[in-house]
C-alpha cells in the first residue's frame, strides 16, 4: 500500500487519480500509524512551504523518518521535494527533512513567477527516471526552487539551473508534477510504484 500523505495543503485528487491510473493501491492519510504500515510514501504538495509544519505537529515527520530509515521508497512532489532539503526562504522557521543539503529560494526578481508550464529536463542515472530521456518535457508550477546538489538526478533551467529531481537510495523527489506531465509523468509514477 502507498500512503499519500495529506497535510491539508492543496488537493490530492490529481495525485490519487494518476497513481490509480498506473495501478497503484494508494490511500490518502494524515494518520502516522497508516504511514508506518505503508510500503511506499508519497508526499505531494502544492502551496506554501509553511504547510509542511503540519507534518511535525501531527507526528507524520517522525513516522516518515522511521519508514525512510527502514528503506521504504519515498517520493516528494513539488513542495514535497523542497521539504527534503534543509528548508526554504518561503518559511524560514520551518525545517525540512534535511536529507539533502541546501535551502530552497525564490526565483530572482525580474523573472515571471511562478515558473509555470512545460520545461525540459536533463537527466542522469536514476531508478525513478528510468526510461526518461534528456529533453523530455514535464509540467512545473512553483515559485521556489531547490539548488543543484549531490543527489540531483535531473536539472531544469529557468534563469539558472535548479533541481528537477533528486534521488539517493530510497529517497526521491521531483519538483515538477508527474501527475500532470502526460505520458512522461505517468512513466515516472509507474517506475516509483514498481520499486521493490
Amino acid at each position, binding site marked *: 500500500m502507498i500512503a499519500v500523505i495529506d497535510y491539508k*495543503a*492543496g*488537493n490530492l*485528487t*490529481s495525485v490519487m*487519480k*494518476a497513481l490509480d*491510473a498506473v495501478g497503484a493501491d494508494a490511500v490518502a492519510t494524515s494518520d502516522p500509524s497508516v504511514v508506518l504500515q505503508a510500503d511506499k510514501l508519497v508526499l505531494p504538495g*502544492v*502551496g*506554501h512551504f509553511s504547510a509542511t509544519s503540519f507534518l511535525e505537529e501531527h507526528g507524520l515527520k517522525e513516522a516518515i523518518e522511521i519508514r525512510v530509515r527502514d528503506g521504504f521508497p519515498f517520493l516528494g512532489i513539488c513542495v514535497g521535494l523542497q521539504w527534503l532539503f534543509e528548508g526554504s526562504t518561503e518559511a524560514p522557521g520551518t525545517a525540512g527533512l534535511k536529507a539533502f543539503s541546501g535551502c530552497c529560494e525564490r526565483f530572482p*526578481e*525580474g*523573472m*515571471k*513567477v*511562478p*515558473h*509555470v*508550464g*512545460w*520545461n*525540459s*529536463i*536533463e537527466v542522469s542515472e536514476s531508478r525513478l527516471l528510468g526510461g526518461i530521456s534528456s529533453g523530455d*518535457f514535464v*509540467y*512545473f*508550477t*512553483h*515559485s521556489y526552487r531547490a539548488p543543484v546538489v549531490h543527489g540531483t538526478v535531473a*536539472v*531544469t*533551467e*529557468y534563469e539558472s*539551473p535548479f533541481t528537477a529531481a533528486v534521488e539517493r537510495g530510497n529517497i526521491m523527489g521531483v519538483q515538477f508534477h508527474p*501527475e*500532470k*506531465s*502526460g*505520458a512522461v*509523468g*505517468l512513466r515516472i509514477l509507474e517506475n516509483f510504484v514498481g520499486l521493490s
Partner: protein
Amino acid sequence: MTLTKRIIACLDVAAGRVVKGVQFVDIVDAGDPAELAHRHAMAGTDEIVLLDITATHEGRGTLIDTVKRTAKQLFIPFTVGGGIRTIEDAAAIFDAGADKVSINSAAIARPELIDEIGRRFGAQAVIVAIDVRRAKSSHDPIADAEVFVSGGRKPAGRKALEWAKEAESRGAGEILLTSMDADGTKAGFDCELTARVSEAVQIPVIASGGAGTARHFAEVLLQGKADAALAASIFHFGIANVRALKEEIAKQGVPVRLPC
C-alpha cells in the same frame, strides 16, 4: 532547457456539452467535454480550460459531474471557470479534479476571493480572468482599457492594467486576458494590449481572443509577450493539427513542447 510557451484549448460548456467549435467527423460524440479534452491532451495540447458559459446556480451539479468525468483520464493541467463565486465553489471544483480555477466577475465583485483561494489552495491554483475592451476615445486606449464582467455585458469600472496588478498582489498565479475587441474576429490577438499587461505584472499571462492562424499564435507569444495562448477556435485547426500548429510556430522562433 527553456520554459516553453503553452497552447491551451478552451472548451466552452453549457449543460455538460461543448457548445463551440467545428464538427469533428472522427469523434464519436463531438460535444462531450471529457472525450474532447482527452483527444486534445493526446494530440499535444499543453493544457485544458473548461469554461461553463451558462454558469447558472442550477447547473452546478452538472458542471461538477462534467469536471469529474473530464479529469478522470486527463493527466495534463486542467482549469475550470465560470460561476465560481465562493471558496466553497472553488473547493468543489478542486475536489472534482481540477488543478486551477479561473475566476472573473466574482473577483471583481469581491477581490478578497483571490486571496482566500490562493491561501487555501496555493497561488498556482488561481487564475484571474480579465475581459478587456480598449478605450477607443482615449489618447492611450490601453492604459485606459476597461474591464468588463458578466460575460462581457457590464463594464466593471476598473482599468485593465490596474486590475491585473491588484490580482497579482492578491496572490493570483496567472492572468487570463481576453481582448473583447479581438474575440471572435479570427484576425489575431491584441498583441499590444497583451504586451502591456504582461509587462505590468510578474505572473504569467495567457492571451485569449482573436486566434485565426498559426502566425497569430506566434505573434502574441513573441511580440505580445504572452506566456501562453488560449483558443476555443484552436478547434478550427483540427485537433490532430495541434502538433502542426506547434511545428509552425516553432519555425517562427517560439519555444514549444515538441515532440508532444
